[in-house]
């Protein structure tokens, strides 16, 4: 073997090692975050009790006998996520439909780019917008009890934040439906609207659903924008104009200032949130796979 050859071999295996390292890095990051969460939360769960933690309704960490119950936060998170998804998906799906069929073709791309720009705005800006525009507006004009903070304010802000996800995924799903579906239904006497809403949208259903799940994942995990408009009182939600606290807000509000057992309670809150998002992500990939199989079948 000559020298040059063995040098090339060495270089090749060195580069290979770098590539493998890069490939493994993200997996390693995921595993270490999981390990951190579960290892630090385990002693807390063992001490407080998982049931007590998940279904306790009292969160009082400053008293001499602290109680850690995150049920109010879980409920608030679910309410906020559900409401923002309903608002965001309604607006987003209709936007996607209009871009797909009803909008002037010259401006479709411009509008799509503008909507995608929404995705690039930092969440703290959404929070500021909510704090300065949405909350005072709700407080002065809509709310019956003079409170602007709460589930509705957070849902409005979040629904704007999830729009780009819903619009672009639904638009792509609609575009993936063969155009013969549309032409065929027109040929059978359907109007434009009937063809889109009764044929195209149902055909793109699994793609749209995947977008919805992705949007839910974003809504449940959003922290900064929510913390600024949700109020932050750890009480059971009774209405949409009431200061409440979501899981993410609960973690962020205490993360920098709390010490000792309270920090472990926050990490445990993180575990609950992590499990929620994990379930959402798994269902997203399941839906996506199903959609791709369907489209592949259609083309054959």
């Amino acid at each position: 073997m000559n020298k040059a050859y063995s040098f090339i071999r060495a270089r090749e295996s060195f580069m290979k090692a770098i590539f493998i390292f890069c490939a493994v890095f993200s997996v390693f990051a995921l595993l270490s975050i999981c390990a951190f969460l579960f290892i630090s939360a385990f002693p807390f769960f063992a001490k407080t009790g998982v049931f007590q933690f998940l279904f306790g309704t009292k969160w009082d960490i400053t008293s001499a006998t602290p109680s850690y119950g995150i049920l109010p936060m879980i409920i608030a998170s679910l309410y906020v996520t559900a409401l923002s998804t309903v608002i965001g998906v309604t607006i987003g799906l209709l936007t996607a439909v209009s871009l797909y069929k009803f909008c002037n073709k010259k401006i479709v791309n411009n509008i799509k780019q503008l909507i995608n720009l929404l995705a690039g705005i930092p969440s703290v800006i959404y929070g500021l917008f909510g704090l300065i525009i949405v909350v005072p507006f709700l407080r002065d004009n809509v709310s019956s009890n003079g409170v602007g903070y709460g589930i509705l304010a957070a849902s409005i802000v979040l629904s704007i934040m999830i729009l780009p996800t819903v619009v672009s995924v639904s638009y792509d799903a609609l575009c993936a439906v063969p155009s013969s579906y549309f032409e065929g239904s027109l040929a059978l006497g359907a109007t434009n609207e009937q063809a889109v809403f009764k044929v195209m949208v149902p055909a793109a259903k699994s793609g749209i659903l995947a977008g919805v799940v992705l949007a839910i994942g974003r809504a449940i995990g959003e922290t900064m924008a929510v913390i600024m408009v949700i109020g932050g009182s750890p009480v059971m939600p009774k209405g949409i104009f009431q200061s409440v606290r979501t899981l993410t807000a609960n973690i962020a509000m205490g993360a920098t200032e709390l010490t000792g057992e309270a920090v472990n309670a926050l990490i445990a809150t993180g575990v609950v949130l992590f499990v929620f998002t994990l379930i959402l992500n798994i269902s997203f990939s399941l839906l996506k796979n199903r959609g791709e199989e369907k489209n592949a079948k259609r083309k054959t």
Partner: protein
Amino acid sequence: MKKIIVFVSIIALVLSFASCGSKSSGFDTSKNISVTAREDGSGTKSAYMELIGLKGKADPANVVIQTGTAAVLAEVKNNPSAIAYESLGYITDDVKSVSVNGVAANADNIKNGTYKLSRPLSVVYKDSNVKSGLNKAFLAFLGSKDAQSIISDNKYVSIYDTAPEYTIDSTLSGSIDVSGSTSLQPLMIKLAAEYEKLQPNVKVTVSGGGSGTGYKNAENGTSAFGMISAVFDKTNAPSCVSYTVAKDGIAVIVNKQNTISNITVDQLKAIYNKDAGKDAITTWSQLIK
């Protein structure tokens, strides 16, 4: 036809946004008090709750939590029915500071002790320990002009008007241990850093633990100085004396439209107590007659 509909809906959108900007003048006392508080773990919060007699209590259910001084000020500035508390040094002209028990919140009233929402931040030490050498020099530094400017720069109230300049003693070396109150700890860390700059051979270690730890460590000699954030109580450390480093004051703030000018500690307690029951104060009309 289509164009007209589009045009009208755009105008409607613009108008609805514009209406956000219009504000009615005059203060409506029938509004509920929007109780604003800091997050758990905030030093300002624990000091305030302690001063109004609700030490360690959770917030009332309707509380709006703001993380950080700036967020509290912004909320009070924008929400006509808000009430909040914040360290005196951070209060700006955007909000209105309310007198407590008839005494205005300012540095003079904190210095002379008439303002209620204020407390001394002190160090406790054994007198025999501080007769000479390093500890004596550090105590002199705490009372010096250098220290006073750090105290006021960090929004605490300096209580010594004519403080002498600190004289650097280049022969000093060694280490000083300070521990105790987490309310004084952030300020003490800044003071210690400045002292280490003036006396490069001296190391000052500052640790927390709470006022109880401060008393205990000073009494048993673990630390040269213990930090406490309340009036010195001799029974906690019989062989020690105390020296007040600075005072901190907490102002009660409301929106500028609000017509209230004075509030009592008992009223604050009735607003911030989650267990106040029928004594709870929830609307401004209960305070403004």
